[in-house]
C-alpha cells in the first residue's frame, strides 16, 4: 500500500513527539551536561571536557563488569533462542489446550522483576528452597551466596526461566502465521520433518527471531532488578552487571560526572550492537 | 448536470498515473472505463472522487470548479474490488450509515434501507454481519450502501472481479437495470472487453494513463481510432496483419492476395495494417469474394459452444472464434476465409483509415 505524502500528519504524531522528547531528550541532555563537568555540590561545577570518558574507559572495575555483561548476554542468547524455538514447536496449535499453554507459558513474564528475584532467592536456597535443597540432596555442594560459579549459574537459570517464554511465544505465533498450505505442499512433496523445519518453519520464523534476538540482547544487557534481589551482585562482584555498577555509582556514591559518562557509553554500546545485529541479519538477506 | 474533467493529470515521483485526461460525463449516463491492469482506471476514478488531488487540470461539476473540494462534501459513492463494508456493523447499519451521517429521520432511513435491500435482494440478510456473508452478498451490501444515498456520482472499481463468473453475469445484468432509471453519473472500471460490451453506455479506453478513445460503446467498438483501441476492445484481441495495397490489389504476402473491392478503392498504394476480428474469420467462404488464407492449426480450444482456433501461416498468426465444435490436430493444414468487407485498415502509424461498412443484416 502506497502511503500518501501529507505533512499535516505531524499533528497526529506531535503528542508522542512531545511526550517522548520530555521523557528522553531532557534527561539525556542532563546526562550529557553532567558527563563533561565535575560536580561537588549545588553551583559548584567545573568543566572537565572528556576527562570522565577517559577515566571510565580505563576503569578496570567497569571493564570487568562489561566483560561479565557480554558473557552473560551471549549465554542468554545461546540458550534461550534454541530452547524457545523448541518449546514453540511443541506447543499445541489451537483449541483450549493451545490457549492454556499460551497462558501458562506466559506466567513468568507477568511477574514483577523483583518478585522474580525473590522467587529464586527462596527457591534456590539450600534450607527452604526446593531447588537448592534438591541439588544438595543429590550430593552436590551448592550455595549461590557463597560460590561464584553457583551464583552465576543461578542467575543464568533464573533468566532462562524468566525469558525463554518470551522467545517461545514469539516463535509460537510466528509458526501459527504460516499458512496451512505450506505444510500441505510439504506433505505432498514428501518432505521429511527436518526438511519442513529447515525449509518452511525456520525461514518463516526469521522476522520474529530477529525481534527475539534483539529484545533478548537488549534486555539482558540492561538486566538489573533480578540479580540485585537474588545475589545483590555477589559474591564479591561476580554477578554485578552494568546497570548495577551504574546505579551504585550514581546513587550510592553520587559520582555524577563519571556515572553520566558511563551512561552515555553504555547507551551507545546497546544502540551500536542492536544496530549491528539488525543490519547483519537484514543485509545477509538482501545479499542472496 | 454533468461532470467535466479538464486536462487532468496526476504525476507522482515522475510517474504518470494520469496524463492530460479530458472527458465529460452526463447525468443519467453509464460510463465504462476499459483498460488493462495499471492502465490508470483506478487513478482516474480516485481523482474524480476527490480521494487524490490532480497535479494539473480541473474538475468541473455543473459549471462549478470542485477540484479542491473534500471527499466528505461531494455526494459520491464508490464500490471497490475488495468487498469493503464496516465489519462491526450489521448489514442494515452498513446500508444506513451514509443516511445516518446525513442526519435523515430514522423512519425515512428505515424505508430507504429496506427499499434498497429489496432491490439488491439482500432483505433476509439485514441482521447479519458482513463477514458472515458470501462474497456475492458482501458485494451486494456494498452496492446497496452506494445506492441508498442518491449520490450524484457512483464509481465502480472492478466490482465483480473477485466473484465466480456466473455470479458476475447475474450482477452485471442487475446493475444495468438498476441504473436505467437513475439520474446519477455511473462510472465502471473493467479489464474485460466483453463486460464493457454487456454493460453498454459510453466506453472510454485507457492505456498507460492516457485516454485512447471515448464515445458510445458501439461507436468505439465499430470504429477504433487506432490499432491499440482495436486490440483493447476485442476479446480475443483483433488479428492484425501487415500487408500492402497496390493499384489493383491488396496482399498479405506472395500467396495471399485479393483484388481491390469498390470499398477499398480509395486506399492509396502503400503499406498498411489489416485488422480482422476473430469472430469474422470462417472455415467456409460466406461470400464469393472472401479471401482464402492457407494456414496450419496451432491449437484448438473448445468451450462447448465455441471453438477458439489458433492458426499460423508463414508470416503471421491469427485467432479465430468459431461457433460449434471444430477439432483439428496440431499442424493440420486448412484454409480460413476472411471476408474482405469486414477488414479494418490502419496506416503505418497505426491510425484507422478504413472501417468496414456496417452491414445492416437481415432484420425487421
Amino acid at each position, binding site marked *: 500500500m502506497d*502511503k*500518501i*505524502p*501529507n505533512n499535516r*500528519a*505531524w499533528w497526529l504524531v506531535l*503528542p*508522542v*513527539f512531545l*511526550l*517522548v522528547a520530555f*521523557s*528522553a531528550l531532557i*534527561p*539525556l541532555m542532563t*546526562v550529557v551536561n553532567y558527563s563533561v563537568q565535575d560536580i561537588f555540590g549545588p553551583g559548584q561545577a567545573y568543566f572537565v571536557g572528556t576527562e570522565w570518558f577517559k577515566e571510565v574507559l580505563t576503569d578496570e572495575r567497569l571493564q570487568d563488569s562489561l566483560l561479565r555483561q557480554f558473557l552473560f548476554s551471549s549465554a542468554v542468547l545461546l540458550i534461550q533462542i534454541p530452547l524457545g524455538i*523448541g518449546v514453540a*514447536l*511443541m506447543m499445541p496449535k489451537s483449541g483450549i489446550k493451545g*490457549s492454556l499453554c*499460551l*497462558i*501458562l*507459558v*506466559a506466567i*513468568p513474564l*507477568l511477574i*514483577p522483576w*523483583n*518478585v522474580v528475584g*525473590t*522467587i*529464586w532467592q527462596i*527457591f534456590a536456597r539450600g534450607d*527452604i528452597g*526446593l531447588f537448592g*535443597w534438591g541439588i544438595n540432596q543429590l550430593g552436590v555442594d551448592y550455595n549461590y551466596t557463597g560460590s561464584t560459579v553457583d551464583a552465576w549459574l543461578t542467575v543464568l537459570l533464573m533468566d532462562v*526461566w524468566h525469558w525463554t517464554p518470551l522467545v517461545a511465544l*514469539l516463535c*509460537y*505465533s*510466528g509458526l501459527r502465521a504460516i499458512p496451512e498450505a505450506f505444510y500441505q505442499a510439504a506433505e505432498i512433496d514428501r518432505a521429511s520433518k527436518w526438511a519442513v523445519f529447515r525449509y518452511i518453519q525456520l525461514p518463516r520464523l526469521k522476522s520474529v527471531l530477529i*525481534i527475539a534476538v534483539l529484545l533478548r540482547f537488549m534486555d539482558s544487557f540492561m538486566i538489573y*532488578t533480578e540479580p540485585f534481589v537474588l545475589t545483590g551482585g555477589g559474591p564479591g562482584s561476580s554477578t554485578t552487571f552494568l*546497570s548495577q555498577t*551504574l*546505579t551504585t555509582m550514581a*546513587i550510592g556514591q553520587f559520582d*555524577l560526572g563519571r556515572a553520566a559518562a558511563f551512561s*552515555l557509553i553504555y547507551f551507545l554500546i546497546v*544502540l551500536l550492537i*542492536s544496530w549491528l545485529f539488525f543490519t547483519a541479519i537484514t543485509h545477509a538477506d538482501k545479499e542472496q | 448536470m454533468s461532470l467535466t474533467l479538464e486536462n487532468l493529470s496526476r504525476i507522482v515521483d515522475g510517474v504518470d498515473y494520469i496524463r492530460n485526461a479530458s472527458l465529460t460525463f452526463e447525468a443519467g449516463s453509464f460510463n465504462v472505463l476499459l483498460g488493462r491492469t495499471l492502465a490508470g482506471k483506478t487513478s482516474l476514478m480516485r481523482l474524480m472522487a476527490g*480521494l487524490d488531488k490532480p497535479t494539473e487540470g480541473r474538475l468541473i461539476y455543473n459549471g462549478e470548479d470542485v477540484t479542491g473540494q473534500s*471527499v*466528505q462534501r461531494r455526494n459520491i459513492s464508490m464500490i*471497490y474490488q475488495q468487498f*469493503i463494508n464496516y*465489519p462491526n456493523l450489521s448489514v442494515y447499519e452498513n446500508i444506513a450509515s*451514509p443516511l445516518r451521517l*446525513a442526519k435523515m429521520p430514522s423512519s425515512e432511513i428505515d424505508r430507504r434501507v429496506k427499499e434498497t435491500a429489496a432491490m439488491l435482494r439482500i432483505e433476509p440478510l439485514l441482521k447479519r454481519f458482513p463477514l458472515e456473508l458470501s462474497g456475492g452478498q458482501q458485494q451486494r451490501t456494498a452496492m446497496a450502501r452506494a445506492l441508498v444515498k442518491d449520490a450524484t456520482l457512483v464509481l465502480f472499481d472492478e466490482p465483480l472481479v473477485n466473484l465466480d463468473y456466473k455470479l458476475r453475469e447475474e450482477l452485471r445484468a442487475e446493475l444495468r437495470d438498476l441504473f436505467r432509471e437513475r439520474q446519477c453519473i455511473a462510472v465502471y472500471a473493467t479489464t474485460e472487453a466483453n463486460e464493457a460490451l454487456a454493460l453498454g453506455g459510453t466506453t472510454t479506453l485507457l492505456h498507460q494513463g492516457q485516454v485512447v478513445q471515448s464515445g458510445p460503446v458501439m461507436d468505439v467498438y465499430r470504429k477504433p481510432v487506432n490499432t491499440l483501441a482495436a486490440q483493447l476492445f476485442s476479446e480475443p484481441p483483433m488479428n492484425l496483419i501487415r500487408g500492402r495495397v497496390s493499384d489493383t490489389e491488396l496482399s498479405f504476402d506472395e500467396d495471399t492476395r485479393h483484388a481491390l473491392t469498390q470499398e477499398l478503392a480509395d486506399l492509396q498504394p502503400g503499406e498498411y495494417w489489416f485488422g480482422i476480428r476473430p469472430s469474422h474469420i470462417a472455415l467456409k467462404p460466406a461470400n464469393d469474394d472472401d479471401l482464402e488464407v492457407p494456414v496450419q492449426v496451432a491449437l484448438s480450444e473448445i468451450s462447448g459452444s465455441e471453438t477458439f482456433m489458433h492458426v499460423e501461416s508463414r508470416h503471421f498468426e491469427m485467432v479465430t472464434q468459431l461457433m460449434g465444435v471444430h477439432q483439428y490436430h496440431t499442424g493440420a493444414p486448412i484454409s480460413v476465409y476472411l471476408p474482405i468487407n469486414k477488414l479494418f485498415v490502419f496506416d503505418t502509424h497505426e491510425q484507422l483509415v478504413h472501417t468496414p461498412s456496417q452491414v445492416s443484416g437481415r432484420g425487421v
Partner: protein
Amino acid sequence: MKQARSKNVGITVFIILLLTPVYWLLNMSFKTNQEILGGLTMWPENFTLQNYVVIFTDPSWYNGYLNSMAYVTINVIITLLVALPAAYAFSRYKFLGDKHLFFWLLSNRMAPPAVFLLPFFQLYSSIGLFDTHIAVALAHCLFNVPLAVWILEGFMKGVPREYDEMAYIDGYSFPKFFVKVFLPMIRSGIGVTAFFAFMFSWVELLLARTLTSVDAQPIGAIMTRTIGASGIDWGVLAAAGVLTIIPGLLVIWFVRNHVAKGFALGRV
C-alpha cells in the same frame, strides 16, 4: 501420532518445570514461618491464610498494590491516547522525517533505564512531581509509548486504506471516522497493546522505586521491608509475591486470543 505424543510430553514437562518455582512461592505463602524454617515440606502442613491477612489489613502493604495499579493504569491510558493517532499517521502517511522519527522512538526502547535514573529523579523533583503516580506513569511512557506505536502501526497497516476512504465517502469526518469506524476495527490490536503496556509497567521496579518515596511507593519497593529485626518474614513475602502475579493473569486471560496475533506481527 507417536510424534504428537512425544510433543505433548515435552511441553508438559516444560510447563511443570516452569511452574515449579511459582508453586513453591504459593506453597510458602500458606505456611507459617515456623514451618518454612523448620524443614522442607512439599505442601503446607499447617495451612494458614495469616500471611494474606497481614497484607490485606495493613494499609502500608495494600497501598503498595493500589499505588502500582494507579500508575500502571495511568500509564496505559496515556500510552494509548498518544500512540493511537501517531500509529495511524505512521501507517497511512508519508511526512517530513517520518522514518527518522520512527527510529528515534524505537531507540528509546533500547535505552537502559539505569541511564535515566538520576536525570529523571532530578527532572521530576524540579517540577514537583516526585513521589506521585503520574511521575512513574510518565517515566514508563519512555519505553511503553514507542512500543505501543510500533504494535499499533502493525495492526493498522493490516486494515486496507479503502476502509478509510469508504468512510470519508459516506460522509464521516476524520475524528468521527477514527473513533467510530477505525478503532473498533483494530480492537484486538488495542487490547494487545494495552496488555503489553500494562505488563511492562507492572514488572518494572527500578524507575518506579527511584521516583517515589512514601505516597506512591510501588509494591515491589514495599516488599523489601519484610526484612525486619527478626530476619525475613518469608511467609508474608511469599504472599505478597503471589498477589503480584494475579493482575497479570487476569489481563492475559482477557486478551489470550489476540496475544498470539500481536506477537505474530513481530512486535513486542
